C-alpha cells in the first residue's frame, strides 16, 4: 500500500513535469499557423515588379505630334510626375506593382492629323512614375481613388491644363519652381491634405491653380520674387479657419475667407492666381514649406 501511494505520488509529479515540458516546448515544436492576411493590391516586399514604357519622338511618336494628352487612372497607390530636359521624350512610364496586380495597361494613339498624342494609363494599384519631356505641350487628367500624387513643375514643364483628383482620400503635393509654364491646374482631394509650394524667381507664363478640398487641409507656401510673379489667393473655408502668416501678401482676410495678393501684383511680369475652396478643415499661407512631404524613390 505504501509502495502504491509512493508510485501514485510519482505519477502525480510526472504529470506536473509533463505539463512543464509541454508548456516550454509547444510554442517551438507545435506552432499554430493562421492564413497569411494579405491585401492583393498592396503587394508584398520582395514580390514586386516594374513595368516600363517610353514614348519617344522618332521611335514610336511621329514628328508631327505637338501636344500630348494624358489620361491616367489608378485606384490605389501613388503618382509621381516630373519633367525632364529631353525634347524627344513624350512620356516615360515606370510602374512598380505587386506581382498579384495586373500589368499596367497603357494605350496611345495619334489624333487630329497626328498633332495630338493621346496616352491612356490604367491600373489597380502601384507606384506610377511619369517623366515628361520639354518638347511638347501637355494636357492631363490624373485620377486616383486612394493614395498620393506628387508633381513638380520646373523650367522644363510646359502644361496647358492638368486636372488632378483624389476621389476618396489621400494627399496631393504640387511644387512650382523657376520658369515653369502652365495655364491651368485643377487639384481636388475629397478627404486629405493638399500642399502647394511656389518657390520660383520667375514663371514663363501666367497660370491659374484651382484647389478643392472637401475634408482636410490646404497649405500654401509662397517664396517668389514679387516683381516677377504676382501671386493671388482667393480662399474660402466652409467650416474651419484660415491662417495667413506671410508679409508679402495684402488684401482682405477674415476667419473663413481671404482675397490676398502679393505686393506689386498688378505690375508683376506674370501672375499666378490660386483659388481654394475648403469644406471642413483649414487653410494656411506662409513663406516656407510647413511640412515635409514623404518622398519615396523607386
Amino acid at each position: 500500500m505504501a509502495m502504491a501511494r509512493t508510485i501514485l505520488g510519482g505519477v502525480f509529479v510526472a504529470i506536473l513535469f509533463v505539463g512543464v515540458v509541454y508548456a516550454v516546448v509547444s510554442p517551438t515544436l507545435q506552432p499554430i499557423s493562421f492564413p497569411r492576411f494579405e491585401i492583393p493590391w498592396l503587394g508584398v516586399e520582395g514580390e514586386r515588379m516594374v513595368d516600363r514604357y517610353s514614348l519617344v519622338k522618332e521611335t514610336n511618336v511621329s514628328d508631327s505630334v505637338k501636344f500630348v494628352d494624358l489620361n491616367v487612372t489608378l485606384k490605389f497607390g501613388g503618382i509621381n510626375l516630373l519633367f525632364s530636359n529631353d525634347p524627344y521624350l513624350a512620356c516615360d512610364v515606370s510602374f512598380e506593382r505587386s506581382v498579384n496586380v495586373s500589368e499596367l495597361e497603357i494605350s496611345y494613339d495619334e489624333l487630329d492629323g497626328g498633332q495630338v498624342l493621346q496616352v491612356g494609363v490604367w491600373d489597380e494599384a502601384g507606384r506610377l512614375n511619369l517623366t515628361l519631356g520639354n518638347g511638347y505641350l501637355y494636357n492631363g487628367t490624373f485620377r486616383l481613388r486612394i493614395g498620393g500624387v506628387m508633381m513638380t513643375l520646373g523650367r522644363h514643364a510646359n502644361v496647358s491644363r492638368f486636372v488632378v483628383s483624389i476621389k476618396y482620400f489621400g494627399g496631393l503635393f504640387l511644387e512650382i519652381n523657376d520658369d515653369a509654364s502652365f495655364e491651368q491646374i485643377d487639384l481636388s482631394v475629397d478627404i486629405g491634405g493638399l500642399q502647394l509650394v511656389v518657390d520660383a524667381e520667375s514663371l514663363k507664363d501666367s497660370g491659374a491653380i484651382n484647389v478643392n478640398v472637401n475634408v482636410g487641409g490646404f497649405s500654401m507656401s509662397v517664396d517668389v520674387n514679387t516683381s516677377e510673379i504676382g501671386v493671388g489667393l482667393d480662399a474660402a473655408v466652409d467650416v474651419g479657419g484660415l491662417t495667413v502668416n506671410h508679409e508679402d501678401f495684402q488684401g482682405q482676410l477674415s476667419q473663413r475667407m481671404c482675397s490676398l495678393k502679393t505686393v506689386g501684383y498688378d505690375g508683376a511680369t506674370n501672375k499666378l492666381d490660386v483659388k481654394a475652396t475648403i469644406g471642413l478643415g483649414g487653410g494656411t499661407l506662409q513663406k516656407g514649406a510647413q511640412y515635409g512631404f514623404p518622398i519615396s524613390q523607386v
Partner: protein
Amino acid sequence: MEKIGDEMSEKGMSGYFSAFLSRIGGVFLAPDAAFKQIIADKVGVWEPFLLILLLVGIEGAVFASFVYRVILAIAESLSYLTGNVPLGLLGAIPWIMVILMVVVALIFWIVVAGIAHISAKYIFKSEGSFVQLLKLYGYSLTPYSLVILGTVLLGISWATWPLSMFFNIVATFWVVLLMAVAVKHNYNIDVGKAFISSFIGPMVVWLIIVSIFWAWLWLIISSFAGGFV
C-alpha cells in the same frame, strides 16, 4: 563532519520527498488515512501552498503557452500589414495569465476554506483549526493534476477533447469529495455536515454574491428606464 552532514541532509531530503509522494498518493488512494496522517505529522502550510502554486502555475503555463502560440500565429498572419514588429506587451499576456491564475487560485483557496470554517465552526458548532483546514484543502487539490493532463492532451490534439473533458469532470468531483473529507477530519463532523460546509456553504455564498450582482445590474438598467420595471 561536513561529509556526514551532507549525507544526512541528502537522506533527509530524499526521505522528505518520499513522504511527500506518499502523502500525495495517499490523498488519491485513501484520503481518510492520508488526511489523518497529515494532521498527525503537523505538516507545515508551505507544502500545500507550494502544491497549489505548482498545480495552478503549471496549468496556467500550459494554457498560456497555447495563448502564446495563438498570439504568434496572429502576429505572423498580420505581419504583411504590421511588418516584423516585436510582440511587445502582447508577449507579456501569457505571463500575466499565469500570475492571474495563481493569484485567483490562492484567493479562492483562502475564501473557500474560510467559508467552510465558518460553516463548520459556527453553524455546526464544531472545533477545528482554520490553518489546518487550509493545509488539507491544499492537498485536496491534487486531482487537479488530471486537468493539467487533459489540457496537455488537448494541446497535442483536439481529437482528445472527450478524454480531456472526462478528466476535468472527474477532477472536479474528486476535489469536491476530498474537500468534504478534509472538513470531516478537521472538525470531527459527519460527512453530510462536512459536505454542506465544504460545498453547499461556498455555493450558497456564491449564489448570494451573484444574486446581489444581478439585482444591482437590474436596478441600474431599470433606472435608465425611469424607475423600477
